[in-house]
């Protein structure tokens, strides 16, 4: 172990790595710069298209970068690095599902959605189906996905605070969560989609550059040989370190854990193209062609970033060591920050910490504007007011919703702080893959599909996901066989109402939702609307009648 690593051990035991003032300073600089940009960008926020879809004026490369900024959450940066450092190959497996999923979005969804919708996923689904029930179902599913995702992000913020700012008291962490939430409300309230997009672009550039520099640094230390980096991680792990090289260390324990992994892999690959905050980003560009360029850029940026995390994860295992990582205040999530400290000392740690905070801020902002748009545009304007509302009235409702969701996120984040809620991200992907994707695909490609099919599939997918998760070991009854501590959300080990062993509902709920869409369609007597399908199909493939960029 190097002298620096020993320093980290000492630092870790006193729950203090680096200089919190530096971390806060660099983060404050990020906030200042992005706030100026958000205020400048907000000058043209006049119409609903401006507020919800940034006037459809972003270019493909800009939007692709923002998509990467939206998608590469703290879970995928800190979580995957840590998972590779501790579990080796199995952590890498996780990132592959996240990447391949983008091909579904590229080939089947992005362009057709851009051509047929205006602001939300529900615009597309209600195009040729009965508007109000379908919009309501789509909005409920959107809000559910966003809420799970948001809660996971806000709860993660607490752990980051402990690690990066040296704040360990629950009350003090609560204050920091509230500050993050308040900043996010400010960005979204003032900047709308345009401000949110710029925050995501800046964050994505910082994150990918930061990870790139660290990757080169790690590789340089090992003579630019990935094999040598892996050998370093194997050596640092000591006995049993060879397990890092192949699959199975995390998911290979039993037949059930293998089934859990299969379920997760299915939810990851089919979930992305159903995530409402991802879908909404396709409306911020002027045409389907730009939507395609967005996804191409996003795939390159996200793919390259995940390749970086492979090196960073094994690098953290080699240079910091699994014991130090597990013992640090942030646990597995601390692998990347500790590696930054090991490589570049206080300054690099400060930069990476600020980037991690910016990550939470940018992702949470994207989720909030999605939820607010869905509530204001789908539920308020179209279901409650039946479309009889002035556009500026709709945006006003959206802004109020932003504040409400922001407050909800702060309160939820404070309560979830320290709770075991990491499963919520995987659950959000499972709900997106079950409740959203089947209906999106059917309504774009299947002529016979009708309202009943959409409702069966969306509600069936949503309800089956939630029921399966409530009665799974992630909520109750999972006990660590060694320590006897609870690994479930409910920490009291005497409460155990789990009925099924599966920890991710995808394996059951996704096929179920696809089948329900077919069954619901076939048993309904609803008259088909060939003229509506013709309009949808022609518009989706040619872009005729699609909304263009607003000119200011």
């Amino acid at each position, binding site marked *: 172990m190097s002298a620096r690593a020993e320093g980290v051990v000492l630092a870790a035991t006193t729950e203090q790595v680096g200089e919190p003032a530096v971390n806060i300073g660099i983060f404050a600089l990020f906030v200042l710069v992005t706030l100026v940009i958000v205020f400048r960008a907000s000058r043209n926020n006049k119409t609903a298209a401006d507020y919800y879809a940034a006037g459809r004026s972003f270019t493909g490369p800009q939007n692709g970068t923002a998509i990467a900024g939206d998608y590469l959450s703290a879970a995928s940066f800190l979580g995957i690095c840590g998972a590779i450092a501790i579990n080796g*190959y199995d952590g*890498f*497996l996780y990132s*592959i*599902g996240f*990447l*391949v999923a*983008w*091909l*579904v979005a*590229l*080939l*089947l969804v992005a*362009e057709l959605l851009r051509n047929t919708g205006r602001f939300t996923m529900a615009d597309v689904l209600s195009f040729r189906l009965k508007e109000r029930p379908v919009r309501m179902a789509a909005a409920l599913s959107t809000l559910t996905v966003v809420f799970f995702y948001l809660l996971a992000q806000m709860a993660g913020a607490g752990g980051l605070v402990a690690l990066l700012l040296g704040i360990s008291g629950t009350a003090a962490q609560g204050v920091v969560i509230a500050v993050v939430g308040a900043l996010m409300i400010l960005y979204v309230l003032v900047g709308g989609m345009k401000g949110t997009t710029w925050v995501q672009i800046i964050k994505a550039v910082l994150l990918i550059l930061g990870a790139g520099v660290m990757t080169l640094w790690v590789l340089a230390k090992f003579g630019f*040989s*990935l*094999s*040598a980096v*892996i*050998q370093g991680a*194997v050596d640092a792990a000591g006995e049993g370190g060879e397990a890092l*090289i*192949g*699959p*199975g260390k995390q*998911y*290979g324990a039993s037949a059930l854990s*293998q089934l859990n*992994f*299969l379920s997760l*892999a299915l939810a990851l*690959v089919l979930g992305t193209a159903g995530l409402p905050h991802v879908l909404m980003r396709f409306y911020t560009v002027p045409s389907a*062609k730009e939507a*395609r*360029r967005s*996804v*191409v850029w996003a*795939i*390159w940026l996200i*793919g390259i970033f*995940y*390749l970086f995390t492979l090196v960073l994860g094994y690098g953290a295992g080699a240079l910091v060591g699994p014991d130090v990582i597990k013992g640090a205040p942030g646990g597995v999530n601390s692998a990347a920050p500790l590696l930054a400290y090991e490589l570049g000392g206080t300054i690099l740690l400060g930069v990476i910490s600020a980037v991690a905070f910016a990550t939470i801020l940018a992702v949470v902002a994207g989720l909030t504007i999605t939820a607010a748009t869905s509530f204001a545009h789908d539920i308020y304007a179209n279901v409650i007011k039946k479309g009889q509302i002035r556009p500026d009235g709709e945006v006003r409702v959206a802004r109020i919703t932003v504040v409400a969701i922001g407050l909800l996120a702060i309160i939820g984040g404070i309560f979830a702080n320290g709770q075991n809620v990491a499963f919520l991200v995987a659950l959000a992907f499972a709900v997106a893959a079950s409740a959203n994707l089947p209906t999106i695909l059917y309504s774009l490609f299947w002529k016979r599909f009708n309202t009943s099919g959409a409702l069966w599939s969306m509600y069936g997918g949503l309800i089956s996901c939630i029921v399966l998760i409530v009665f799974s070991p992630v909520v109750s009854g999972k006990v660590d066989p060694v320590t006897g501590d609870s690994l479930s959300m409910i920490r009291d080990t005497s409460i155990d109402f789990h009925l099924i062993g599966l920890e991710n509902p995808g394996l059951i709920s996704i096929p179920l939702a696809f089948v329900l869409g077919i069954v619901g369609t076939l048993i309904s007597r609803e008259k088909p609307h*060939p*003229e509506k399908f*013709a*309009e949808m*199909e*022609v*518009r989706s*493939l*040619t*872009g*005729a*009648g699609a909304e263009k960029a607003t000119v200011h």
Partner: protein
Amino acid sequence: MSETLNEPPQTPYQVVQASPEFQALRSRFRRFVFPMTALFLVWYFVYVLLANYAHDFMSTKVWGNITVGLLFGLGQFVSTFAITMIYARWANDRQDPVADELRAKIEDGELGGGELA
């Protein structure tokens, strides 16, 4: 436009939908994206199943610490990048000109015999 007693009049979009230009565009699109989707999903699940159930095979070292599993994993990255570029090039070269032409005709009211919404 011809009307019979039994069938409601076709909307301009239905006329476009039935046109040979649009049918060709549509079937070319489907013939490309459906097999491609099947291909990458099958390749992804073959990989996932191998990683999940064939630990020994995937842990076989090819050189140094580079295993079959790592190469397969990196192969997923390569195939994703490759499909992305192939699709983007195909769509730019083959589909966009046809779609743009159809769109211009529709918006000018040439196809479908009337102004569309």
